[in-house]
């Protein structure tokens, strides 16, 4: 990489959510000083043109549709060929997401640019966590090697699961399920569809907006970094004969069920009831 890499950020079919998420990166201003941003869909930049760049960031899915005065696929292809490194930003560019196709992978097969997969780094997530892109860009700028997994995702991010660091882990360990929404107590894995135990991400490790995560706020993890996102019935746990059909990564179903059964039989009294409750206030002003 040159001292100040040239970066093109192109928006394909999507919602700009990854751009807006990236705007939450605390060190964005210093990072932007280290690159030459030739084009960005929201930030002030020169007029778009096809040109060479060191890092191409593709946000959104690919689809045969109009873009500028041309075709989206043609534009991506021309940029792709002329880029040294390509970042597939978000689940749309990584796997197709809801709206189209991914760069090197689709939900079930390979993407259009699979043969050039060596220059692609995938950062799935809907949206991406700002730190994921911040880290990737810094590594590229500093010419440091990024270790990738077989879906071209940086291992430093995607070796973890969303479950790691969740404040509801105690409830998971002692097999205390949230019966319903709207409580700070209970694990969302068994009934509410939480995919945290098998979704690759650092959401609960580094937290969103530095403060929280969906499962901490009582919302199940929807597995938005995974290739099949979005699955159907996102608020329900898929089961087979009453048992979750997908279990925590790395254990056998039998091992998981044995452990869960033992945990369930050894009651943790503290976790079986509300942690505390507020008394009714007369705060009607």
């Amino acid at each position, binding site marked *: 990489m040159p001292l100040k890499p040239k970066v093109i950020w192109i928006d394909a079919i999507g919602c700009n*959510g990854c751009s807006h998420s990236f705007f939450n990166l605390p060190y964005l201003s210093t990072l932007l000083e280290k690159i030459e941003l030739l084009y960005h869909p929201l930030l002030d930049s020169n007029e778009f043109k096809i040109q060479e760049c060191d890092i191409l960031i593709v946000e959104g899915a690919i689809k045969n549709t109009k873009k*500028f005065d041309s075709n989206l696929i043609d534009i991506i292809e021309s940029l792709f060929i002329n880029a040294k490194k390509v970042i597939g930003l978000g689940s749309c560019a990584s796997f197709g997401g809801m709206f189209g196709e991914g760069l090197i992978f689709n939900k079930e097969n390979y993407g259009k640019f699979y043969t050039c997969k060596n220059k692609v780094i995938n950062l799935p997530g809907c949206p991406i966590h700002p730190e994921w892109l911040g880290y990737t860009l810094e590594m590229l700028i500093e010419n440091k090697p990024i270790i990738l997994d077989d879906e071209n995702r940086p291992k430093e991010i995607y070796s973890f699961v969303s479950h790691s660091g969740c404040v509801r882990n105690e409830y998971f360990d002692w097999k205390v399920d949230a019966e319903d929404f*709207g409580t700070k107590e209970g694990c969302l894995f068994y009934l509410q569809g939480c995919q945290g135990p098998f979704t690759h991400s650092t959401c609960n490790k580094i937290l969103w907006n*530095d403060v929280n995560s969906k499962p901490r706020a009582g919302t199940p993890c929807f597995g938005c970094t995974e290739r099949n996102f979005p699955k159907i019935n996102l608020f329900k746990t898929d089961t087979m004969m009453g048992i979750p059909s997908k279990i925590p990564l790395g254990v056998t179903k039998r091992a998981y069920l044995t452990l869960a059964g033992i945990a369930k039989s050894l009651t943790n009294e503290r976790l079986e009831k509300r942690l505390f409750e507020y008394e009714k206030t007369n*705060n009607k002003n």
Partner: protein
Amino acid sequence: MKKLITKIEGEATLNIIGDEIIEWVDIEFHQFRGIENYLIDKHYMDALVINPRICGICGHSHLIATAQAIENAFGAIITNKAKLIRELTLNFEIIENHIKWFYITLFPTQIKDKKYLFKALQASQKISQAIALIAGQYPHNSYAIPGGITSDITYLELTKVKNIIYQLLEFKQELWSDFELFFTKIPKNIGKSNNRFLTKNLDISKIKEISNNPYQKVTYNGLYYETGPLSRMKEYIKEIYQKYQDSIYSRIYARVYEIFYLLNKNLEIISKIDLSENSYIKPNITSNKGYSIIEAPRGVLIHEIEILNEKIKYYNIIVPTQFNLSTGSKDNPSAAQQALLNENKKYLDTIFKCFDICAVCIGH
């Protein structure tokens, strides 16, 4: 002449007639995703995850509209606590949107300096954090569900949120002086429109969608209306409105005004929240039709749903940009068209963008 407009959460092409002065303009949007079709046959709860992905900047509004439309179909009730907390996070999205729009979208049409971007981000990151404290993350959370909210917040979160508001209020003087700076570069009295306004207190039967491939134009009672901050804040900024009518000055003034209006409103909301109430009341699921009308950052947002055996049979979304940016006729131009008519082309970018356009929303 064709002119491509970028940095509006997507792009639009303007087909302009007139050399120096704009005699007529047609507005064309390119992206289309077909979210409404994508929702068909999905479980109604899945809409709470899919719909925020309509838009990266106002996805939270789509979430709230989705939850309310389903609640309307079920006849579900929610606690006052859940209602107030939803209002709180929705207001934060409006505030964040306006600050980003002001510095990132509007400012560069006249003043190009990176420092304004960083000003916006300093504020917007704090607002995102305030939403995340309550809703888990921002953007793209799904904490509002039929029957209430998923989170069970404590005073720890509310205290943090309140202090973020205090920090943002300190920004007031600076923002208003940047507003004045902007208007040293461009006249105030340009971009006057139809002087017809729409807020969420409307009669839904008077709304008509007219196909204009790939998106739909929207009239109210046969006419095009303006929706958004000026419609909402008109009554609060009477003097400005009387003097400048629906010019770019009033339109931009209303947006800046609304930032601080809503920050104070949010302090008031926080003081009313009774945390002893339930966050969620399980609704009775029925097969029925429902709709919601809410105020999103850019104005009136409508969601309509039909649920049959827990699955979505029909879904329709009308976004504010459809109201403001339709392509009407010479006798009946849309708000943005009228605002551009008879104006000098050199002001085109600013006048067009003062409507705060959301191209991804229109391409839903």
